[in-house]
């Protein structure tokens, strides 16, 4: 009986201590502002390592005013109090989704233009392979000799009048610089309610290796000549909350754009790798507002969608979106927000030639939830910053964004890695948001992964 009593006491005391430590540890973490690394510092200090081809080095601040009938100026903050008088100009320079978000409380800091280059080694591959890319009858990207694409931007110049301009601009987006592999050691996914309150948090890691289209690390352009059908392999594994801890997902992405991914998940409670169907790409990912098909604003087998170029326009984009980023693992990874944590408060900068594309699924089977997505591919750096998605009735439903921070400083952060402060989705109809924050110090490009890591063996070993 005495033993039993003692056991009870120690159990309660240990439990209380664990709760105390667990509760206090986040409070002791640093804020973003305690470790400041400006996003363009690395580029400015190492211009010889970057290639600025295809973009102006400077655009005068007056250009924004000119494009907005003098209503939008560099340095101003657009918010719900002043947005009414800017409606047409703001929609023209961004999108209907962004305008609606500002009316609901988002703030946009208008900042000066900065070029977004690519590493020189990547630019050199683009130049070496220029003119080699073709789109085959079945919608795939290959070289003129019939091989899968060998790296770099395939269509660096896209003629607006080309009937394939839309799909070419999107193939450029897919092949934009991402390193030959990368790791994000800590990605925090937040679920934010209509009042800005955080409802859920999921933390995970994300690794990828490209097996073809390799530009930097040997072996290149493909890792193994016997495995050239696979574009990349990807591992995502969850660190918290505890009931999802150890859950891992292994994905094979194929070069054939008529094919869907292969996807395997390790489920710790079952101690088993289960095959998942990758057919429903628009199912909410872990319940958040984004789906796998929304990643990078639209992530689908290209040949199953139609890509129509609507226009090429100057737009306000989210390149170099924050002034400072976190460099400390223990930091809270908090960025400026408004309406609680609902809307990021970020810099918006002019980009001169954004390819605006209307993407529609070829059949309802390819996307049962959206009628269309209107998305961007920024000419020159070919990154996509934004997409507005419309439901089957044609009503605006979701806006998906990438907020790009910049390249690393070459000291604390990897110079050859570019950073996204948030992958962000806002559900206009539910007034709900899902920002994903990436822990910068643990994002690295060109790590030197081998394909063996991207196997079900690793899923089981990591997931326990």
């Amino acid at each position, binding site marked *: *009986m005495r033993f*039993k009593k003692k*056991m*009870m006491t120690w159990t309660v005391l240990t*439990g209380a201590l*664990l*709760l105390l*430590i*667990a*509760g206090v*540890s*986040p409070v002791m973490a640093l804020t973003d502002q305690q470790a400041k690394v400006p996003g363009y510092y690395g580029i400015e200090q190492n211009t010889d390592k970057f290639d600025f081809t295809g973009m102006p080095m400077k655009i005068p601040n007056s250009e924004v005013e000119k494009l907005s009938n003098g209503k939008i100026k560099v340095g101003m903050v657009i918010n719900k109090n002043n947005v009414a008088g800017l409606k047409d100009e703001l929609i023209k320079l961004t999108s209907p989704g962004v305008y609606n978000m500002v009316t609901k409380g988002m703030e946009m800091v208008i900042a000066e233009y900065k070029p977004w280059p690519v590493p020189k080694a990547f630019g050199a591959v683009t130049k070496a392979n220029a003119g080699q890319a073709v789109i085959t009858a079945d919608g795939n990207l290959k070289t003129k000799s019939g091989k899968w694409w060998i790296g770099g931007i395939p269509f660096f110049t896209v003629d607006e009048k080309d009937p394939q301009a839309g799909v070419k601009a999107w193939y450029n987006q897919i092949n934009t610089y991402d390193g030959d592999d990368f790791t994000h050691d800590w990605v925090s996914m937040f*679920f934010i309610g209509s009042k800005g309150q955080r*409802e*859920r948090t999921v933390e995970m890691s994300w690794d990828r290796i490209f097996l073809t289209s390799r530009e930097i690390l040997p072996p290149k352009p493909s890792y193994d000549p*016997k*495995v050239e*059908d*696979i574009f990349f392999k990807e591992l995502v594994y969850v*660190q*918290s*909350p*505890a*009931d999802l801890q150890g859950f891992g997902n292994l994905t094979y992405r194929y070069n054939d754009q*008529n*094919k*869907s991914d*292969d996807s395997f998940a390790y489920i710790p*409670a*079952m*101690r*088993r790798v289960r*095959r*998942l*169907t990758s*057919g*429903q790409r*628009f*199912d*909410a990912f872990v*319940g958040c*507002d984004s789906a796998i098909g929304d990643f990078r604003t639209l992530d689908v*087998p290209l040949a*199953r969608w139609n890509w129509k170029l609507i226009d090429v326009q100057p737009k306000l984009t989210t390149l170099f979106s924050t002034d400072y980023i976190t460099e400390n693992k223990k930091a809270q990874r908090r960025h400026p927000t408004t309406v609680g944590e609902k809307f990021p408060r970020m810099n918006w900068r002019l980009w001169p030639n954004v390819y605006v594309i209307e993407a529609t699924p070829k059949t309802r*089977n390819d996307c*049962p*939830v959206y009628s269309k997505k209107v998305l961007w591919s920024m000419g020159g750096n070919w990154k996509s910053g934004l997409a507005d998605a419309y*439901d089957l009735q044609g009503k605006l439903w979701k806006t998906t964004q990438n907020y790009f921070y910049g390249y690393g400083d070459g000291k604390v952060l990897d110079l050859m890695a570019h950073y996204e402060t948030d992958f962000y989705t806002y*559900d206009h109809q*539910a007034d*709900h948001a*899902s920002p994903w924050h990436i822990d910068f110090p643990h994002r690295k490009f060109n790590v030197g992964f081998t394909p*063996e*890591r991207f*196997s*079900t*063996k690793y899923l*089981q*070993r990591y997931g*326990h």
Partner: protein
Amino acid sequence: MGGKTRILIGLIGLFMMLVWGGSAWALDYGNFSVSGWVRNQIAYNVGHANPNNILGESADGERDRINTKMFKTAVQLKPQYNFTDNISVFARFLAAIDRGTETDYPVDVDIFPKSYDGDLMLTGDEWAIGLKELYMDFDTQYVWLRMGKQQVSWGQSDGLRLLDIINPLDKTWHGISLNEPYLDAFDNLRESLWMARLTIKSPWETDNLNDVQLELLWLPGDFVGSEFVGHINPAHGSPYNFEPDVFNSENVTPGGQEWGARLMGKYRGLEWSLNYFRHYEDDGLYKLLAVTPHAWKGVEVQTRTYHPRVDSYGCSATYDDALNTKAVYRMEFLYQDRPYESPGLYDVSALGIPDGAGGIVTLAPTVAAGDFERRKTIKALLGIDRPTFVPFINPNRTVSLGFQLYVVQVVEDASDLKKDGLTLNGSPVRENETMVSFSANTGFMQDRINPQILYIYDIGRKGHYLQAGTEFRITDNILWYVGATLYDGKDSSNAANDDFAYFEWADEIQSRITFQF
């Protein structure tokens, strides 16, 4: 501890969870991390009294129903230390107490498993504290070795076990409805075993053949700290007991080694595995020794439980038709020359249950130990997983639909096998057993509300099983599941058969609240 005190402690605990729920996380200090949970599970009987608990009858001869079948509180801690990227050690500790014991039973009954000899030791009669898992990983590019007490799960089925035969199950509670993840995860129901697991990944890949691996398992048998463990059945008198409380069985523990191999990979769109496991039968087979009078049971059946050798051969495959039907197709197959009890080994139906001092039947053993009947048996499963958007239910989230067809077939003449009465596993031989299952789940409000349902229909015996419930994610740290398990069918009176109808007495509603960190 009185009821009011218990409620007060529960409320204080709940309050603490809510206070810390917004900020508490798994601890992560460099190479060391620890996570875990505190959990309370309650099961309340809405069925009949368990007919297998023969005592505790009231004056009218009716068996009293145990209402609160479970009131279990458990704490789990999962510490992990990474020596390097390639070497790590992992442990899982579990402590549990169940206050849902039957109060009117003549002897004390612990509902929580008692059989973790040396591993999960009972402290007093109530607290069970033990090491559920402890292993070390050595991982290189092509070779991964995991040594220690661990769980290995093969196969592709949900809820039903074909190739998932490496670790036995703890059936001491909810033993008749092993349909995870709705009631509890299999990692709590499975008993971890000491073993070495070596996985070798092939360095050669082609566009058609990927991720080829060979997995080898070795279970040392009767070795230091290691011994054979079969399925653990509910204690007699406990709420989940599914055999009459007249047995006093002595377990004959085999001491030999067990080993297995699995070759797996992916060929084009097909993921496949080939499996082999040389092991001992986890269910065990009864051999009758004697029937003796007993003070309050009236009669006690002395038995011995054997675990014969079995060679299991199997395979599994999956195919993802992502672009057209958007479904994953699963297949699993198992072949065994399986040992069965013959009528001479044990036949409870010949005994009858005495209603007083008289009528005791005494039998003598008729068959020598280890003399079992073997029959070639196959088990096969076909499954389809099809997440489907149902816009009027949920525009954001698919409803995950799952269908399974499960067949067990004794492919040799089984007419001379024991077909009535109970075996140790509760299941008499059926030459054919065919079941279908249907499951569905979805998530609302960013998966903070997760309704889920599992239905199984036994075609041959026309029995129904339904598990339905909803999990509420109150915060990231607090999860609450409420649900119900219901059985029904054509014939609920045949105690000899373990069809779903017979288990009507096990109908219950459940609550499971978890604070995780």
